């Protein structure tokens, strides 16, 4: 299923996406309990280079911008890019446009790690505990997947799927169990359940500095693996004869996808559909070649999550909707649209 070839020129698509990204960033930074018009946002951003934004003399709007809104939007962008690219990788690895980053269970492992940080009181102690334990959870899940599926250096893709399903079930059950035990302290349980629904509230610059290197490494590695992933399209054997180190490539793709998805969960909780919808939709426009798909999906993913977070903050203000709820709501219409397209193509 695709748009008919020829496709729109790639450079134009990227340009359009970048312009849209800049727009959505400015609008998102300006929105909140203190609305700041776009021009003022730009002026404040420029001013932030020189002026202080902490202490009693700082401009209140500048403080809100730099302490709250800018880190939040930056984290949103990174989470969106990471999830979209991770999803693109999973779709390429499984040769299935319906695959998503959670298929192999690393997101669930990351969630369990974070929940444990809450339950042991670490989350109140220092804000780094949740992301660190989440990353640890993702890493351990990936190690488990390897251990379950890789024999003599070979990782069969069908086994990956099965192992992922098994691990997901196990880890979700473990997470629910931990939450039920923690219910005796209801503030903790409330924090946990809210966090699991995903959210970017109170993101700080520390979150930005923690996520940035991991996401940057992940994106760069994904682009490096782009052509290998393309070659999987006619099967692993064909890829091998064309010169791809198939098993290494699979393992690397897995690692990068897990790194990106784990980092996203670590700083944002569990949000769904970004890793599924964004690469799927972007592929329809720029085509399946990963050299193009990955950068385009990264930008589109950033736009998607920034916009979703904007809706989450603004739609029912002053109440903030959990981000996972907003992205989840986007799932249904997208799939219905896909269904309608398929019907039209098949003539049913």
């Amino acid at each position, binding site marked *: 299923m695709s748009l008919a070839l020829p496709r729109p020129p790639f450079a134009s698509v990227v340009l359009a996406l970048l312009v849209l990204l800049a727009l959505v960033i400015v609008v998102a930074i300006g929105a*909140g*309990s*203190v609305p700041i018009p776009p021009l003022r946002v730009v002026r404040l951003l420029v001013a932030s280079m020189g002026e202080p*934004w*902490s*202490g*009693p003399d*700082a401009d*209140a709007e500048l*403080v*809100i911008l730099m*302490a*709250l809104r800018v880190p939040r939007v930056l984290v949103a962008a990174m989470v969106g890019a990471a999830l979209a690219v991770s999803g693109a990788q999973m779709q390429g690895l499984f040769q299935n446009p319906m695959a998503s980053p959670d298929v192999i269970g690393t997101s669930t492992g990351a969630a369990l790690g974070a929940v444990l940080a809450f339950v042991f009181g670490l*989350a*109140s*102690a*220092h*804000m*780094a*505990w949740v*992301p*660190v334990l989440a*990353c*640890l959870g*993702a*890493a351990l899940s*990936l*190690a488990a997947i*390897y251990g379950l599926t*890789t024999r003599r*250096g070979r990782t069969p893709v069908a086994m990956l799927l099965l192992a992922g399903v098994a691990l997901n079930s196990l880890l979700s059950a473990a997470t629910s169990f931990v939450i039920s035990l923690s*219910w*005796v*302290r*209801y*503030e*903790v349980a409330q*924090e946990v359940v809210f966090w699991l629904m995903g959210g970017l*509230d*109170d*993101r*700080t*610059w*520390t*979150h930005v*500095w*923690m996520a940035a*290197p*991991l996401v940057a490494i992940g994106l760069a590695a994904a682009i490096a693996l782009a052509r290998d992933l393309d070659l999987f399209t006619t099967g692993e054997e064909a890829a091998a004869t064309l010169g791809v180190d198939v098993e*290494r490539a699979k*393992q*690397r793709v*897995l*690692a*990068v996808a897990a*790194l990106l998805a*784990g980092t996203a969960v*670590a700083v944002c909780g569990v949000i769904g559909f970004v890793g599924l919808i964004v690469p799927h939709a972007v592929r329809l426009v720029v085509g399946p070649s990963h050299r193009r798909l990955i950068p385009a999906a990264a930008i589109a993913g950033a736009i998607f999550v920034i916009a979703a977070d904007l809706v989450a903050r603004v739609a029912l203000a*002053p109440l*903030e909707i959990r981000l996972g709820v907003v992205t989840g709501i986007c799932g249904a219409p997208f799939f219905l649209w896909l269904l309608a397209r398929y019907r039209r193509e098949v003539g049913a």
Partner: protein
Amino acid sequence: MRTGPRRFVSRVLLAAFAAVVAGCGAAPAPHADAVTAGGFPRTVTDGAGRQVRIASRPVRIVSQTLASDEMLFPIVPPERLVGLSSLSRDPKYSNVLAAASAHAAPSIESAEDILRLKPDLIFVASYSRAETVQVLEATGAPVYRLANLDDLAGIMETIRGVGAVVGEEAAAERVVAEMERRLAAVASRRAGRPRPRVLSYSGGFTAGRGTSFDDVVRRAGGINEAAARGIDKFPRLSEEQVLTWNPDVLVAGYLPGEEESVRRRLTTGAGVGQTTAARRHQIVLLETRRFLAVSQHTVDAVEQLAASLDAFQAAQ
């Protein structure tokens, strides 16, 4: 190690490294300033053991929790409060409803609301997220975290701490003294009387050790049955379990207007209705705002419970 595992280990190390770097940046350096009476700048230790440095007497105080609202109203002139928790205006939970409703300060919902007010002191809950505190601190305002308010001694300690950080130690001391006087009165009245077995059973949950309820029962001259059974905090309890323990007195909270339905549920429940407490109508219902209070208003609960225990004993 194969490529895959090697990557994760390096990834985890990276994350840990970033966390350590962030941690070094976030922890404020302790100061050696002495706390001089009425003197600012001063450094106080908050409920979480953190050193909080106050540059000058706070005149733009934001309180994010109901407990700190309730503690601040009697000790600080209202014009120094610029932000209150939204719960302070909620008739279901607030013990300072009249004062808060009449107050001009806005209700706080988010960190942005707080920053907008340009506070010079912010009170947060013991369980507030670390990143929220960090965001608030990054803007220069001192943040005071309340302690776990699990018993009346802790509550009194916290009131003194709040007084110290806002520069109103004398007023705080007066509030604490009044609490102690009332508690002593209850203690002397209940001294020597038999101590009934009391169980909290509200919405299916009970309160065991490490809760303010536990301390309330003890000071009112009763025995917390759940604590005696080794229960901690607020777990769910089945009616069967309640019946097995068969407490002498049941305590529950109720929202305004629900008093009768709560009482009915306790007296006609399949398990709980068969307990000694239910059959003898030895049920104490506390308004939620009194039942859940973790401030000087907790003493109201002690007094009400003690009076009921006296009444039950007299009726036998």
